[in-house]
């Protein structure tokens, strides 16, 4: 572990949101084993915006999937809000994802047959079994926050790329997550839309103290974050804080 990482881990002990300790991930393809993550130690403090950078094949997406509880590590320890997640069942991990984590993907992945409001409400309505008035109200507030309250009844397929990504951001916030994972959130957008989306994420981060872990190739996105974690060959190659970003 680099000296910089050690410093961050120690300095944020009291506000640690997610702690990854010696995460190793190996993929097996027949007889061949490929080690993609080779012992990652990472602490994500609350209220920060962190960029995850690395070349293709560096293990960036795999790490994001493991930290987002979408994939299990081969070994290593993962703690969210001081709770160990290592031995949880699939259903328990789903429940954790739903209650504490939010996701924004590169290709927005909205449900095309549902309205913007329904897309935002989905992660809250499905576990509760009903699209209640409270959920609708909060969905509308979030759509208002991302500047799309006038598009709430538009089908996802009727929205532009930038609008879709803003709906996806609103969706990621519906359950008041502590941590939002964004995988190349601006990767599929034009420059103006990308800037709007980044400003929106930063605004949410500052006003709601929501933590963001953003995987990106874009240096313009990374420099807007509080910290940058660089990954190379399955290991953390560098960790830069905002004062040195």
């Amino acid at each position, binding site marked *: 572990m680099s000296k910089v990482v050690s410093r961050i881990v120690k300095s944020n002990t009291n506000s640690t949101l997610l702690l990854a300790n010696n995460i190793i991930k190996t993929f097996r393809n027949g007889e061949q084993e490929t080690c993609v993550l080779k012992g990652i130690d990472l602490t994500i403090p609350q209220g920060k915006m962190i960029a995850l950078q690395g070349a293709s094949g560096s293990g960036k997406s795999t790490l994001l999937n493991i930290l987002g509880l*979408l994939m299990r590590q081969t070994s290593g320890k993962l703690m969210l809000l001081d709770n160990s997640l290592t031995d949880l069942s699939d259903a328990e991990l789903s429940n954790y994802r*739903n209650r504490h*984590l939010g996701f924004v993907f590169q290709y927005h*992945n909205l449900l*095309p*047959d549902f309205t913007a409001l329904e897309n935002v409400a989905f992660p809250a309505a499905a576990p509760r079994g009903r*699209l209640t008035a409270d959920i609708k109200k909060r969905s509308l507030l979030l759509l208002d926050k991302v500047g799309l309250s006038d598009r709430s009844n538009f089908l996802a397929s009727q929205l532009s790329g930038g609008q879709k990504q803003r709906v996806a951001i609103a969706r990621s916030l519906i359950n008041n997550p502590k941590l939002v994972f964004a995988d190349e959130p601006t990767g599929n957008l034009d420059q103006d839309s990308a800037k709007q989306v980044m400003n929106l994420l930063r605004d949410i981060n500052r006003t709601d103290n929501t933590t963001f872990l953003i995987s990106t190739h874009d240096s313009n996105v990374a420099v807007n974050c509080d910290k940058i974690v660089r990954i190379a060959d399955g290991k953390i190659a560098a960790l830069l804080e905002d004062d040195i970003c």
Partner: protein
Amino acid sequence: MPFSLLVAWRYITANSLQTLLLVLGVSLSVVVFVFITALINGLSLFLTQEITSKIAHIELEPVNKIARVLTADSRFVAQPVSTLQRKQIRNWQQVIEIAESIPGVSVISPIVDGNAFLVRGEATQPIAIQGVEPSKIDAITKISSYIIKGTADLTTGGLIIGADLADELGLFVGTPVLLKSERGSERLLSITGIFRVGLSNLDQRVGFLSIRVARPLFDLPDGITSLGLKLDDPADAPAIAKILQNSTQLKSTPWQEKNKSLQNATDAQGRTGNFIQGFALLAIIISISSALLLSTYRRRAEIGIMRATGISRQFVATVFIFQGVFIGALGAFLGAAAGYQLCVQLASITKADGSAMLPIAPSEGSYMLVIILTIVGAALAAVLPARAASAVDPVEAIQQ
């Protein structure tokens, strides 16, 4: 509305053409099911109606006396029964009273029957004589409606015979003919009517006489040989026959027992129908299952995003089960309605003689059964796609 139901409905209405085709496919199978059921039940009803309209639903006869072995003073004694002993019901008026008190019994006809020969000149033909009360000539078989020459009036003491028998002996209405009974009695009778029922047994072998004329011919001055009963519902015959047997100690035979070949035939038809109905249901299950499996594949990314946002496998599976149930219910109701209409239309097509082209019974389409089976089958058909959907790996699906 449960959210999973809303999602399922949105999915099946999102691609309305595909859903419409799928629902039409299910409906078509339901139509086949309804049509086959109505046809087989209709045929069974038609055959039963044909038979039961011409025969007694229950026959009451004296019990057969058989030789018994008795023990007396530690010795075995055989008690023979004379085959010449005349079987008869002496207390038949009492039996009629008992039968009349049983709900469901509509008509009771006392009968004096026996075998005889019809002699005309050199020609002789065997004939089964039914001696009935003239007012009850139509009680068991509506002979008057089958009369092709003469009348069904027995009050004049004449004989009514079948058309085939009349042809064989060259008999016409008014022709005198000699009747020789099995008891050795003879009587010259005049033919008063000739009938054609369409059943060769009746048209070739049976003749009707007034019971008053039949009594001396068969040596039965007081008793009768049997009682024929008609019921409101022929299907009740076994139950009522049992009641009658217990209360009269007479041999009581429901029509089903005497027409086992009909029962066997309708059973065989029923089994054939069950196969076709089974295949129709299988077609429903396969079509829904394959369409939903395709939908699962097409919506992998959407399912992936649901799973990524922490939505449970059960929710995803429920959405697909509900889709199956929706498609099944729509197809079942549409198919049942279309099947009923088809059956009604087919039942209204008649042949030149006015009888139905197909013995189809629109009311016998088992509509509730097919609706329930289709919905349950559709839900079962959705289980495999639902399992496949709930097993989607969010990481793989989103990367796609």
